[in-house]
């Protein structure tokens, strides 16, 4: 019952955010999951608020909210740094594994740096590299307490067409993680390998509409083990709207394929490690 109330609250809030977004403003974040290759100009600040809603394991009731506040600063015109603070909420009821939970807590912190080597406006395509070390104390899937250290690297590509009104991006992101669950002694290694891409078009002043894809996979025991242990693929629409003082980007991603499959949950999707549906809303505020 409690998770049903939680889900209703989450729906209501996402609806309000969507309405609030009707007065929003935009910069380079045309997508919820994929990054463009531009960096903030030297001396500029930007504040971001992220919310990602993940829902449905195909059994019982599963809802998770990943919250993130980010402050970003342009150190030079090509080099920027960010600090992220993260919180996580889980409302799990009757799923079996993971266990029931209704819990909110501080999840962790990351810092990132990004350097733009090529500009999509001057060069054949845009290219940037990104590095993000971080610490997480709440497991993404189960909500269990943990100690996890990670290092994510991203290679970002961007190509603009039609007077820069049609924008295509591709991100390739390996992330190495080492961690242990609370109460356990054994540290475990894992490689998460993600590829995201997006295509969006400026359909009217202030509005970009397109779609995004996301492939996510895990390699448990890496580097000793190199076999892929799980993967999922998502495709969905992306909308970006810019208003006078802030901007908003929304991407909705239903999972369209994944493995291995837990037959009682889905024959075609991986609903053990991943969820059936994700929705991300990012709002940005420029200074």
């Amino acid at each position, binding site marked *: 019952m409690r998770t049903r109330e939680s889900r209703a*609250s989450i729906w209501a*809030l996402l609806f309000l955010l969507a309405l609030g977004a009707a007065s929003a403003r*935009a910069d380079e974040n045309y997508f919820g999951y994929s990054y463009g290759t531009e960096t903030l100009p030297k001396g500029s600040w930007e504040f971001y608020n992220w919310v990602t809603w993940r829902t449905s394991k195909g059994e019982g009731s599963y809802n998770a909210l990943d919250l993130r506040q980010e402050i970003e600063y342009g150190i030079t*015109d090509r080099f920027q740094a960010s600090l992220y603070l993260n919180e996580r909420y889980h409302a799990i009821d009757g799923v079996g594994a993971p266990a029931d939970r*209704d819990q909110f807590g501080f999840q962790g912190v990351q810092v990132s740096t990004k350097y733009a080597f090529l500009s999509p406006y001057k060069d054949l395509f845009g290219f940037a590299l990104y590095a993000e070390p971080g610490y997480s104390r709440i497991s993404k899937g189960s909500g269990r307490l943990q100690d996890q250290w990670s290092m994510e690297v991203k290679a970002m590509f961007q190509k603009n067409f*039609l*007077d820069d*009104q049609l924008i295509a991006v591709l991100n390739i992101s390996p992330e190495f993680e080492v961690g242990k669950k609370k109460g356990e002694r054994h540290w475990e290694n894992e490689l998460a390998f993600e590829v995201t891409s997006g295509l969006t078009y400026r359909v009217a002043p202030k509005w970009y509409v397109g779609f995004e894809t996301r492939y996510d996979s895990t390699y448990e025991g890496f580097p000793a083990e190199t076999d892929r242990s799980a993967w999922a693929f998502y495709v969905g629409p992306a909308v970006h709207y810019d208003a006078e003082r802030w901007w908003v980007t929304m991407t909705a991603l239903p999972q369209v394929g994944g493995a291995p499959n837990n037959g009682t949950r889905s024959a075609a999707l991986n609903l053990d490690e991943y969820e059936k549906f994700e929705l991300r809303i990012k709002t940005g505020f420029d200074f």
Partner: protein
Amino acid sequence: MRDIDRALLLLVAPPALVLTALPARSVEYLSTQQAQHALFAEANRFEPVSIALTDLQRETVVKASGTRTKLPVDRIWRALRDDQLLGHLIVDEVYGKHEFITYAAAIDANGAVIGIEIMDYRETHGGQVREASWREQFRGKHSGDALELDEDIVNISGATMSCKHVTEGVRRLLALHDVVLKGR
């Protein structure tokens, strides 16, 4: 307070706090009349010019300029001192990241740029295109000149998209002038 309420409060509070601290941005720097007098200080009257492009003329301009943006056929004026033609003033719009950038270009009777002015700039970043030293680079440019960033126009780091689109816009107006306005 329940955990879900704490999560939702944290979700809403940061943007609400930041929003109250943000300054307004949208700025109109020059009206059309102000741009006319800034670029043609000697002119004592401005006559609107109405042009209708043939398909061939339009294709020639697009080919010469390499851009697809709508041509400003209804925002052109002849700048006159008594009956002497000093040149043409054209008000144009190019794509910013999210809004249009409105600017005016003054082109003399021989087809050379006298100057440009940024009239309306609504983007968050890249407003350095308003700097006089950057705009000064266009003075004397003719149709047929490259008008390319990092070639004959210096880019401003951190304002690349605005620099690129304004540069392409001026190239387009010079092509339009060359094809339709020269001698009119």
